[in-house]
């Protein structure tokens, strides 16, 4: 099967799953579970955004939550000022995208190395966390929206039908929006990999020098990938703001760490892996949280440690290898990492 054919198949399967989720879950789940499912969809989108930046661009970003939080905050601030959640989505995406572009420009055009890139992204997230935490005073307001410091913005407005701010979306509708966003972004990153831009980005991850010597502008491509990832994280922030509300903890070290864990455990270079790992680990953590006396951090840390030591490539690629070995008729040794096989 060609790459394009395979991508098409995956998108079709994902579309079927998305349609099924949209049709079945809102009726089948109680409200609380549905809201939780929406949160998980937002988180899966965040995982997807890092899976793209890390997997397709080889960019180790420890601070993907910076764009997640900025997207959420921009959405809340714009929504409160416009009095219309639908109008706030575009500003939110713009802010997240611009922030990613600016940070990417600093790093890629400064030729910052891998590890240092991790540090810089993490630091930026921490700066935003500290800053957002210190905006409790009344001087910290943007238009009608008080930033609220530690409190965050509990009055984060819900989405509504465009042009109809008096008619906010129900939790069921927000769930549908979340699933559609997730599916849309999944399809988008799959398709991007078929374009020249996407193929070059993957090539750059494989060998930066070679790509450069072929005349491809490595920095511009990485910037592009990073910016797309940032925009997606911003969108995840908007969805998240719609089911919880925005507060500084969106920038926190704990969230930043979890995203990296999801992608790593699911498998760098795949998309379904990180999303599945995100949902599974969140479910596991919330289950662990209900076991009296058990601390979910222990579980999360243990999973991460075990993943790095035992399945460094992540669960999905490892599982694919095992499957491949069970079916020797379809010989396809050491799949190229990103495009195929999800």
């Amino acid at each position, binding site marked *: 099967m060609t790459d394009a054919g395979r991508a098409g198949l995956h998108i079709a399967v994902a579309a079927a799953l998305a349609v099924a989720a949209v049709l079945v879950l809102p009726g089948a789940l109680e409200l609380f*579970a549905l809201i*939780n499912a929406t949160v998980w969809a937002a988180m899966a989108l965040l995982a997807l955004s890092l899976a793209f930046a890390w997997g397709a661009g080889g960019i180790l970003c420890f601070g993907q939550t910076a764009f997640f939080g900025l997207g959420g905050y921009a959405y809340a601030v714009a929504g409160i000022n416009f009095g219309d959640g639908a109008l706030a989505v575009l500003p939110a995406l713009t802010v997240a995208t611009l922030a990613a572009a600016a940070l990417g420009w600093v790093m890629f055009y400064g030729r910052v190395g891998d590890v240092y890139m991790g540090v810089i992204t993490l630091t930026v997230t921490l700066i935003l966390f500290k800053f957002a935490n210190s905006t409790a*005073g009344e001087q910290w307001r943007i238009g009608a929206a008080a930033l609220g410091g*530690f*409190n*965050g913005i509990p009055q984060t407005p819900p989405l*509504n039908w465009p042009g109809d701010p008096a008619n906010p979306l129900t939790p069921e509708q927000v769930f549908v929006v979340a699933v559609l966003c997730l599916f849309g972004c999944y399809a988008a990153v799959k398709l991007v990999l078929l374009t020249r831009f996407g193929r070059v980005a993957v090539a750059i991850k494989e060998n930066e020098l070679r790509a450069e010597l072929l005349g491809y502008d490595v920095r511009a491509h990485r910037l592009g990938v990073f910016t797309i990832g940032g925009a997606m994280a911003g969108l995840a922030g908007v969805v998240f703001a719609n089911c919880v509300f925005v507060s500084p903890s969106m920038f926190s070290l704990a969230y930043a760490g979890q995203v990296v864990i999801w992608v790593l455990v699911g498998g760098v270079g795949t998309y379904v892996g990180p999303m599945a790992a995100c949902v599974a680990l969140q*479910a596991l953590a919330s289950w662990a949280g209900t076991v009296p006396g058990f601390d979910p951090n222990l579980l999360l840390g243990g999973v991460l440690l075990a993943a790095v030591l035992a399945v460094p490539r992540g669960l999905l690629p490892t599982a694919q290898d095992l499957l491949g070995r069970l079916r020797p008729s379809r010989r396809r040794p050491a799949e190229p990492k990103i495009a195929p096989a999800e």
Partner: protein
Amino acid sequence: MASRRPLRQAEVLRTVETKMILERRGLLKLASTALAAPAVMSHAALGADPVKVVGIHDTSGGLDIYGQPMVACLDYAVAELNEAGGLLGRPVQLINYDPQSNIQLYTQFATQAATRDRAAVVHAGITSASREAIRPVLRRYNTLYFYNTQYEGGVCDRNSFCTGSTPAQNVNKLVPYVLSNWGKRIYVVAADYNYGQITSKWIAKYAREGGGEAVAVDFFPLDVTDFGAAIKKIQAAKPDAVVSALVGGNHVGFYRQWAAAGLKGSVPVASTTLGGGNESLLLTPEEGNGIVSAFSYFQEVDTPANTAFLARFRAKLGARTPYLGAELAMRTYTGFQLWAEGVRRAGAIDRMKVIEALESGITHEGPAGRTVLDPKTHHATLDVHLARVENRGFRVLQTFPQQPPSDTASVCDLAANPGSNQQHVVDVRT
């Protein structure tokens, strides 16, 4: 601000039915709900269904010093009520959630309490940040809310009752004490969120009214533990006294470092918060002695009602009996009593009926003295005490009986304006 549309009737019914068969396990519920929903039967016939009460208090994380005794008192209040035959002939089932000092977990648990547990009332929140996170959620889902903590005042919401003391009741006693005993120049250190921000304004206002001045105000996020630079900065301002509105276990470091710098003797400290948890136990006598606080209750208040309560409480909890400190834990107990009284008077647990009963002038006589719910503000008129830390406990200096919540009353009248759902920031510049 547009709030979310209330639940459709069908949704409510579905939620009520499905929740009965669910385990409290997040992981399993997705699958189990989908499978089991059609098979659920109506439970209306079961007369002895428990009345569900949800408590959401931090029993871990930086705020656990407040949360743990609050939960102990809530547990005790429910147990006491059940032993006396429950409410309206039904047992009360208490579900406690620990949001781990994480604001977003408050929203999650409040949603859970309203939509899954269908709680008759939610007693929840320690910091004002947590209250502002859950208040809109519970209002949206029509679930009655009690907030049982001293706070900065101004909440005006018919769905919420605030049973703790507010600045007009406590700061208004503390600051005059500081001005007349220690001096006119006050340095304010406060936690950096809405409680500290607003309370510091009240401190400045009462200082000004008493002929003094707040020479500076510094805010500290809840995760700050090292106050070295701040302490130097305070010394440079040469104040007569420090008034603290610091919050949480991390901020206890301030008192410790203040003492370690040898300043306790020269610049005394008063606090609007110290004592709400077990801070007075954490501090050695050298570090703590002499700090003055004002609250609507101290465990050391010497009244027959309090003595009797503490004896029963100890008998019940034995070695696990926590130190109740000031206000928060006892207000949680009192808040529950007020709600129970409202239910009895309403003869039902329906939210509106209970609210109307609570607005009919409910009084509770208990360990914390007399508490009267004010129908216009949903706040409480209560006794306030000034007390000084002495050897890991408090010594009550002075008692001010029956202080009305005049700060909130100046901006809030729910009788005239029942649709209000805001927190007013009282303009304290005047």
